[in-house]
């Protein structure tokens, strides 16, 4: 039986080789590069010790990108779960036309975030933008939506959330359909009102769905890249960059590969820590309820 297990374990060797070559090796090489001043293409570079990390401490652009990444991650997670659950509760009722709504809300999940970003550009541009046209109809002043970094970050978070809220919606729908009717029937006999019903029956029983949905949204939000490069390109200035777009820019536009590696590594560590804290918390919550 031991030999059988050993032969079987050979099956994951191809996958492990891929991970070794394209994940672990780059990761270790990244640690090395983060201590250099490599520009990304030349043969020669110098070791600069922890200079890149020291530079990060005072680099406003890095701080901004870090803050934005957390906003994209946490903000999207909150929005997608609240709206996703609301949509699922709405669509869990019987009425005509609900499959049309479900299809339309889920459809954007299929669309490349990059393309969605460009389509959104038609909404948010100043001249002839679709949103400003609506404001114009009501006689309101046109707004330069993406001119402010803070507003830009908020817009990107909302666009990302609206595009992918369908994922949370279908997860919650599946969760809601998995709750046995007898709980509700028993509660109805006890004369419970609908608010109590939601908080004491629906929500606790949805815990596994909440946990999955939060995990997916958080990972997606923290990785945000495509939609930023399409809609704002990280601008104005560096104000809407996420860590991902900042690494890209530091590497290719500023040709500062050593520094980009250091930013990349720090973002790697931060995202790992943040997601693990959230996942641990959710696992504990789930275990408490079981």
């Amino acid at each position: 039986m031991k030999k059988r297990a050993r032969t079987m374990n050979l099956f994951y060797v191809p996958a492990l080789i891929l991970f070794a070559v394209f994940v672990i090796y780059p990761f270790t090489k990244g640690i090395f590069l983060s201590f250099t001043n490599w520009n990304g293409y030349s043969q020669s570079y110098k070791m600069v010790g922890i200079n890149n990390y020291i530079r990060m401490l005072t680099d406003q652009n890095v701080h901004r990108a870090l803050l934005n990444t957390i906003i994209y991650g946490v903000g999207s997670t909150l929005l997608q779960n609240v709206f996703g659950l609301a949509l699922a509760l709405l669509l869990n009722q019987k009425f005509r036309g609900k499959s049309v709504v479900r299809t339309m809300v889920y459809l954007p999940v299929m669309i490349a975030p990059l393309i969605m970003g460009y389509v959104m550009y038609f909404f948010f541009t100043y001249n002839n933008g679709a949103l400003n046209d609506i404001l114009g109809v009501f006689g309101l002043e046109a707004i330069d939506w993406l001119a402010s970094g803070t507003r830009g970050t908020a817009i990107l978070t909302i666009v990302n959330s609206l595009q992918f809220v369908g994922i949370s919606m279908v997860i919650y729908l599946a969760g809601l359909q998995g709750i046995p009717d007898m709980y509700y029937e028993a509660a109805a006999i006890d004369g419970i009102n609908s608010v109590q019903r939601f908080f004491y029956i629906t929500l606790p029983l949805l815990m596994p769905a909440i946990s999955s949905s939060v995990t997916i949204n958080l990972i997606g939000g923290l990785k945000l890249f495509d939609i930023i490069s399409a809609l704002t390109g990280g601008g104005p200035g560096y104000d809407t960059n996420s860590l991902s777009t900042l690494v890209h820019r530091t590497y290719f536009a500023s040709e500062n590969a050593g520094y980009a590696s250091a930013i990349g590594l720090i973002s790697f560590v931060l995202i790992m820590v943040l997601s693990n804290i959230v996942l641990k918390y959710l696992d504990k919550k789930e275990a408490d309820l079981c």
Partner: protein
Amino acid sequence: MLMKNKKAWIWRAPLLLVILLVYCSPFYILLGISFKPVTDLSSHWKFPTLPTLENFRVAIEQGNIFTALKNTTLISVIVVLLIIAVSSLAAYPLARNRSKGNNLIKSFILGIMMVPPLSILVPLYSILVDMGGINEYWGIILILLTYELPQAIFLYTNFIRSIPEALDEAAALDGCGPIRTFFYIVLPQLKSVTASVIILTGIHCWNDYQFSLYVLQSSKMNTITLAISSFFSQTTSNLHAASAAALLAILPVVIVFLFLQKYFIKGMVDSAIK
């Protein structure tokens, strides 16, 4: 009962209408701009009075949309096929031999799902340059394969665990080695989860931008996202053709989705449930 229904509709109908309007508007605007002549500067909300196909002609001729569609299809199909082979194989021991070492490997693989690939962009890119994988199909295929693997392994592992182990044991008693057991007993049962893997990985490859951006730099190798982005950044004066190109790029996905919606949603839910 009828009264209650009527009451529900009073707040439900406007709500549904708003949701539908919000979700239809991007497609409506994209359609409108694509069919509008470049000279038509009316509001994006106004449907073209004189619809034209001119923008599509420009998109196809200057944007090389068909080359891009071909490249994207080729890359996506190969990655999906490789993913099915590599991940179903890898999942089998992870689902069946639950030794300490294997559990460690499984959590390592799940950990990779959380990594933003761009955090190791610099070294990854330089390694690919050293290997000569830039502007090569195999370069992008291997990268996409690696970063799409964890999710597929996760799906297969969970699914194989739900198959009774007694079947494997019976096969072993009959003298089937692990290789034959996998191919004759396990593999034929993986149809539904394979559909989910195909859909999830296929969509990710089709929509990929961040990896293709680095690996495929020559315009001959453009995938659709790259073609669209260069269209939008180069021809700022002709956003109409750019939106026609975007429309052509999302059309295949939208059509496939509308027909196979059930499977798409099932795949999503499967991948989410632990």
